[in-house]
């Protein structure tokens, strides 16, 4: 079986009984078991549960039941998405043995579509990080260069797809956590519009920013997965009541160049200023030239509040996180200190033992940002700047259809390189946080490699609910090069 087989192909083969879901699943499980010791992409490989599910799907197909658009497609889920199978650890000691009694909405939708969850992927603890170095279960390694990070926080999901263990994976993106690892690992990573995908069952980090989204090798597969998980959910009051666009049509093989012709592409000068690695700049500019060559118009635009994005993001995300993570107190579930002296000691010791350094740092930051006497200067001020950032984008989208730039200022950095310098680490999010602050859809598309063979991602940002534009942009680029289909050497 070709490692580059698409989810679309697998689903079609399984539905027409050319291959069994069990065979597909077994292959994915073996690959996961082979990859994991070296790259640490998975917190759990759900061999038993996955094979069970695959057998059910084969049986249903044999009975003549319609198997769903993802029939037998193996998928990996970031381990901050609640599943009844396995544990939902958030890569934290706090939830190391936590089992969710319910499935996230996206999980229910995947099951209905016939997908098979084969593994849960490693992440920065509670999705707090840009490198997946903050996992309680160890760092995820970059398949292109195992001494480097895979990006974060959805590092495991990116690696699961990059290594072709699975054709599809889900991650979550609060400030770049899908796009950054997609860029570092050389796969497509799409953060949908805020509200496009239900957050019910996604363990919250920054609730006003979090969004679940797909990783895929192919644009068409990303579109297919997005179609399955998107849509209004009565259990998530922030999910949007929008008719779903036909994402698959946008990524289908019908002359994407046609969609590109006359496309107005905004190039924000702030995204190409100091601090951008020339290697990344080269590859991103070359990719943008491909669009221009196909008839797109390039328009230089300004997003003047870009320089405040990281600060704004870290105030809002940590403020929300300080509240979202208050529930992990050792009282009702999760880690409890073995010998609490009293309730206060139970709280403080359970949290101290259960939560990692970066999580504690962010809880402290957020608590401070919300505290009486400081909230005005920090949290409230961040909300005001957030509105200005949104305004920047609405102005820009008055002139252009999409905005393009780099995903990250550099290619994958070395493990440990920024671990002791949180501020340096936070700057990895400089180009990604604004899409979360403005609630916009954004994608990372593989667009080239550095001389040393590290992938580079092109970021495309669209107006709210215009994911289709991102998918056709991705489809266009995948016809212009082979960056997406290169497979990192495993072993």
């Amino acid at each position, binding site marked *: 079986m070709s490692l580059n087989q698409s989810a679309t192909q697998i689903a079609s083969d399984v539905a027409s009984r050319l291959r069994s879901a069990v065979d597909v699943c077994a292959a994915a499980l073996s690959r996961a078991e082979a990859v994991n010791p070296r790259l640490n992409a998975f917190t759990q490989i759900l061999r038993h549960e996955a094979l069970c599910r695959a057998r059910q799907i084969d049986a249903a197909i044999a009975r003549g039941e319609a198997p769903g658009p993802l029939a037998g497609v193996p998928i990996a889920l970031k381990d901050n998405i609640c599943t009844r199978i396995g544990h939902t650890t958030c890569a934290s000691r706090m939830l190391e043995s936590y089992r969710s009694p319910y499935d996230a909405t996206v999980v229910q939708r995947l099951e209905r579509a016939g997908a098979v969850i084969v593994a849960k992927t490693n992440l920065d603890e509670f999705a707090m990080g840009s490198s997946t170095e903050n996992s309680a279960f160890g760092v995820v390694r970059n398949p292109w260069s195992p001494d480097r990070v895979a990006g974060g926080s959805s590092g495991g999901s990116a690696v699961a797809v990059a290594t072709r263990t699975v054709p599809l994976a889900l991650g979550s993106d609060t400030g770049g956590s899908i796009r950054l690892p997609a860029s570092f690992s050389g796969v497509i990573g799409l953060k949908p519009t805020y509200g496009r995908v239900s*957050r019910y069952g996604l363990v919250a980090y920054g609730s006003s920013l979090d969004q679940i989204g797909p990783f895929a090798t192919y644009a068409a597969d990303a579109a297919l997965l997005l179609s399955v998980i998107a849509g209004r959910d009565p259990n998530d*009051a922030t999910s949007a009541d929008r008719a779903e666009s036909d994402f698959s049509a946008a990524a289908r093989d019908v002359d994407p160049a046609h969609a590109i012709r006359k496309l107005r592409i905004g190039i924000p000068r702030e995204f190409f200023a100091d601090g951008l690695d020339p290697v990344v700049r080269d590859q991103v500019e070359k990719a943008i030239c491909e669009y221009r060559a196909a008839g797109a118009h390039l328009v230089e635009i300004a997003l003047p509040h870009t320089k405040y994005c990281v600060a704004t993001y870290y105030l809002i995300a940590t403020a929300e996180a300080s*509240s979202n993570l208050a*529930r*992990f*107190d050792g009282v009702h579930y999760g880690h409890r200190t073995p010998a609490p002296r009293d309730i206060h000691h139970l709280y403080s010791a359970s949290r101290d033992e259960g939560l990692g350094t970066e999580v504690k740092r962010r809880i402290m930051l957020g608590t401070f940002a919300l505290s009486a006497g400081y909230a005005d200067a920090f949290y409230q001020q961040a909300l005001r700047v957030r509105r200005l950032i949104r305004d920047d984008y609405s102005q820009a989208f008055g002139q252009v259809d999409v905005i393009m730039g780099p995903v990250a200022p550099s290619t994958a950095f070395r493990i440990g390189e920024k671990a002791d310098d949180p501020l340096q680490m936070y700057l990895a999010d400089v180009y990604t946080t604004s899409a979360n602050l403005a609630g916009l859809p954004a994608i990372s598309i593989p667009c080239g490699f550095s001389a040393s063979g590290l992938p580079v991602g092109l970021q495309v940002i669209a107006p709210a609910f215009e994911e289709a534009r991102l998918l056709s942009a991705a489809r266009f680029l995948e016809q212009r090069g082979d960056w997406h289909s290169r497979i990192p050497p495993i072993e």
Partner: protein
Amino acid sequence: MNARRVFKGMPRIANLEIQPIIGLEIHVQLATRTKMFCACAAEFGAEPNTRACPVCLGLPGALPVVNAQAIELAIRAGAALNCSIARLTKWDRKSYYYPDLPKNYQISQFDLPIAERGWFEFSREGETRRVRIRRAHLEEDAGKNVHDFPGFTAVDLNRAGTPLLEIVTEPDIHCAEDAREFAIALQREIAYLGIGEANMQKGQMRFEPNINLEIRDGEQLAKTPIVEVKNLNSFRSLHGAIEFEIRRQLEEWQERGVTGARGNKSNRGWDDVRMVTVAQREKEEADDYRYFPDPDLPPVTPDARRVAEIVGTMPEPSGVRTARFIREYQIPAKDAPALVDDRATADLLDAAAALGVDRATLARQFLSFWQMQANARQISIAGLRLPAGVFAELAQMSSSGRINATAAATIAGELVRRSDTAAVKAGEPLSVSSLAAELGLLQTRDSDQIAGWVDAAFAANAKAVQDALANPKKLIAARGFLAGQVMKASGGKADPKIAGELIEQKLRALAGDAARS
């Protein structure tokens, strides 16, 4: 309001004017079917932790969704409190750690409550008093810590997420009696309007008074520190706590001269047995709840038309209805609660009256034999399940003289009895007039027949008639006596008006005869 009333039984202090300043915070559990932010049943008394789901347990990944019924009830409460209803209201997280609060934050409303700036009136000693309402906001209740086990505390989260409306008054109350009367009137209104069951035993309504004193000594004005007494769940404890605090604060001020500065509010608890407030352990630092908008819940913008509809279809508040009933139905004030308190019965009375009958007669019948019939079955009059038309028809027949009062009561009893029969249950209409005819209770207006009964009464009581004619002082009594005899002989059927006229005619004729002889 007269503040001096408070000091009954307190030592008078020369040259001091003392004004207690009291505001109330009131928590009302709303009568929703489900909880504030999830689909769990909001019910009292179930097995611990059986009314709980990922949302109210605060499990990772769970998200709240607003209960639309809670919004409607809060709007209704806002209208009853004469508040303006917010055009945009939002949700905020209030952070504090407590084992019965699974998320360690409570979803509440901080700066944009659903209702604000209103007033509520109650009456005391025949006088209407008004307390301004600062705000009313929605929030979720916490669970309960259960200390029934040796060596550990258990948590029951059935109550967690139950919708609460917190009503905050302005400090317009100046004595314990007024606080109690206000609370009673408010409790009655909440239950009456179906906003909440407001059952105090079930903890569905709780009070937290804020109390301090303004003490004027000539030119100088001192204020004692504000005390909030937590979690009072009876009118008695509310009254007792305020009385006690007024005394205690005055004594403390006299002994130690402690006065309040901004923000040094302290909390005290209430000991219901010793009837005293007790200091609660002070926290080391000031409360910082770190309120911020809940990112999981978009703001609510109540549709103006829907608000108008809720307010428009809101039942008449019991206070207003009481005043109207006294006026329209000409009933004594003391009888009003019997007609107003059960809303279905009050609605029934209004519905029957709307059919165009004499309201005073109708109300009299409600208060007399209908009430008796209901009491005998331990239900309300509405619980008799008779159609409004039946009440109206019976009142109509009474007021038009077709039946007398005794007959009306008899018919009512028979109506109730028959309403249980299979035929009526199957839909056969109950006709009051045919029942009256069947029972032979229709009054006769046949003058000849009545004249016969009158003649018989005069014949049987000839001596008494003669005495009365001789002594005009006895004449009035004789008229009544004779009328009674006629009614007795007719079995109550003689039209009393015609009988009276005939008796009068006959007396006059006899008097004429006597004068001539």
